[in-house]
């Protein structure tokens, strides 16, 4: 297995890994509730959803309402993939 390692790819990957680990140094500890990521917008969502939207699942509230445009984009991605596979795989438009 190790005989077939691609050296240059390995170097590139390790380089990327080192940057990632280096970046983790200043990241908040795992599960830290005081981390900025979990404080600012996240807390707003948790606090406001019942009043603003009134669904129980916060993820759904964000998905369909707060960041609905992202979701529209996501559906378009799926649609694009469908047409893409159609365009690629089939020689003709078919029935």
């Amino acid at each position, binding site marked *: 297995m190790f005989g077939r390692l691609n050296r240059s790819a390995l170097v590139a990957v390790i380089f990327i890994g080192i940057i990632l680990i280096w970046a983790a140094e200043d990241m908040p500890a795992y599960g830290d509730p005081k981390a900025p990521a979990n404080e600012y917008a996240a807390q707003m969502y948790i606090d406001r959803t019942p009043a*603003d*939207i*009134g*669904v*129980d*699942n916060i*993820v*759904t*509230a964000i*998905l*369909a*309402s707060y960041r*609905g*445009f992202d*979701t*529209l984009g*996501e*559906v*378009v991605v*799926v*649609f694009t*993939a*469908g047409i893409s*596979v*159609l365009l690629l*795989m*089939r*020689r*003709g*438009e*078919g*029935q």
Partner: protein
Amino acid sequence: MRENVVVRTVSRLFVPFIQLFALYVIVHGASGPGGGFQGGVIFATSFILLLIAFGLPCVRGRFGRSWIRAYAAGGIIIFAGVGLTCILFSGNFLEYAAIETALGIPHLQTLMIDIVEAGIGITVMAVMTSIILDFVGKEEEEPL
């Protein structure tokens, strides 16, 4: 696909339940885990099961290519249509609250979210089925 009575029977039994479950997942999205996307994928798996058990012509027969396309587009049209309706009610795009205020019906947003999730589900279901059909199409028939 080889003729296999057991597989066919079990599939025929299971497909409605899978589809029912998919619908539940879509509708349930607002209050629990799940939503349009997951439900759509599950719905698509029911067709995959049909495909495995009965082969391509059967699935095609129930679910023609143009229908797939219409469903795929229809889901997005529902989603975008809801968004555009909000503009008609002088809100921003996707601003469900605008409709709610304009019509004066409380909790309309929940309904909107359900409609949107349904749209997502329809598109995802159709597209996933279409992709799978495209992938296996070669074995069953010579594409045009």
